[in-house]
């Protein structure tokens, strides 16, 4: 199944970097009768360095939207967010801080 798009906006707010990222993913739970299919890991990198690692479950809503906050940072910093799901599918997006 083709992996859906991601969208990210990283901006400087109050001296820190706010990273808002949207991920297309069904995040199906066993209750919905379909097989479990959800994002398990999310990694956030700032200028190549991993600054945040998350493990999440199918309790996160469909088409997840996260906001993370990184210390300091400046315009042009490279932010990369990637995810991997329980089927091994993955996607990532990279953009510069606006």
């Amino acid at each position: 199944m083709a992996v859906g798009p991601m969208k990210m906006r990283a901006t400087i707010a109050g001296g820190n970097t706010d990273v808002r990222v949207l991920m297309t993913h069904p995040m199906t739970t066993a209750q919905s009768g379909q097989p479990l299919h959800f994002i398990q890991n999310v990694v956030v990198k700032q200028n190549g360095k991993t600054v945040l690692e998350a493990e999440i479950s199918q309790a996160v809503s469909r088409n997840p939207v996260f906001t993370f906050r990184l210390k300091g940072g400046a315009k042009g910093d490279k932010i990369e967010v990637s995810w991997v799901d329980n089927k091994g599918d993955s996607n990532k997006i990279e953009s510069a801080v606006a």
Partner: protein
Amino acid sequence: MKRFLAASLLAAALPLAAQDTRKEIQRYQQMIADGSPVELFELEGETLWKKPQGPRNISLEKCDLGLGPGVLKGAYARLPRYFKDADRVMDLEARLLHCMTTLQGRSREEATKRVFGNENEPSEMEYLSAYVAAQSRGMKMAAGTSHPKEKEAFELGRAMFFHRAGGWDMSCASCHGEEGKRIRMQDLPVLSKPEFARPIVATWPAYRVSNSQFKTMQWRINDCYRQMRYPEPKFASDATIALSTYLAVTAAGEPYRGPGTKR
């Protein structure tokens, strides 16, 4: 001074639970709008807008939404409106269908096979509506009102809004006719009044968090008639366009803020 005092006493007398509930529901609505994945649907819509399709293998990039072929900026805010080439008032979905059949050479039957999607597979109309509507963000809504057929659509829409029929003797006004009313926890805006119609029409089409689906105005009208125990309105028929014309004209002047995020 006394009247003011009495009024504030009266306001305090309202059961606090009811006041809090409404305030909390609005806070919930604000928070889901902030954290909404609706932009993902705009992205997919852009891909579809540019994707060559149909027997003629052409994209929709030359589709004229009323401001000239391929002009997207502000086009949605001016719909529904009269289109000379079709001699008909059209809303966004009717116009997209027109371009699919005329530009791409697709049959109406194929293009309308699946106009309402589901959470696993949104429809073309839903993705395209998200993308096109987003290009009117911030622009004042101004549906067509000058052409005789636009006036006709508005009058028909208004009459439909108050027309009682169907298995439960209902009209739109049965639920959207009295201020301050709710169905369960859902506030019911009086859509026949500009001040209540504006914030609503300005946020359709919309992403519905309750079922993670992106919904269009044609779906909204279709699903209301389903719950009013009517038979089904035909997709993009004059009746549905008349009703959305009535709502859009009633809401005219409001800056478009969609695509929205709703319960």
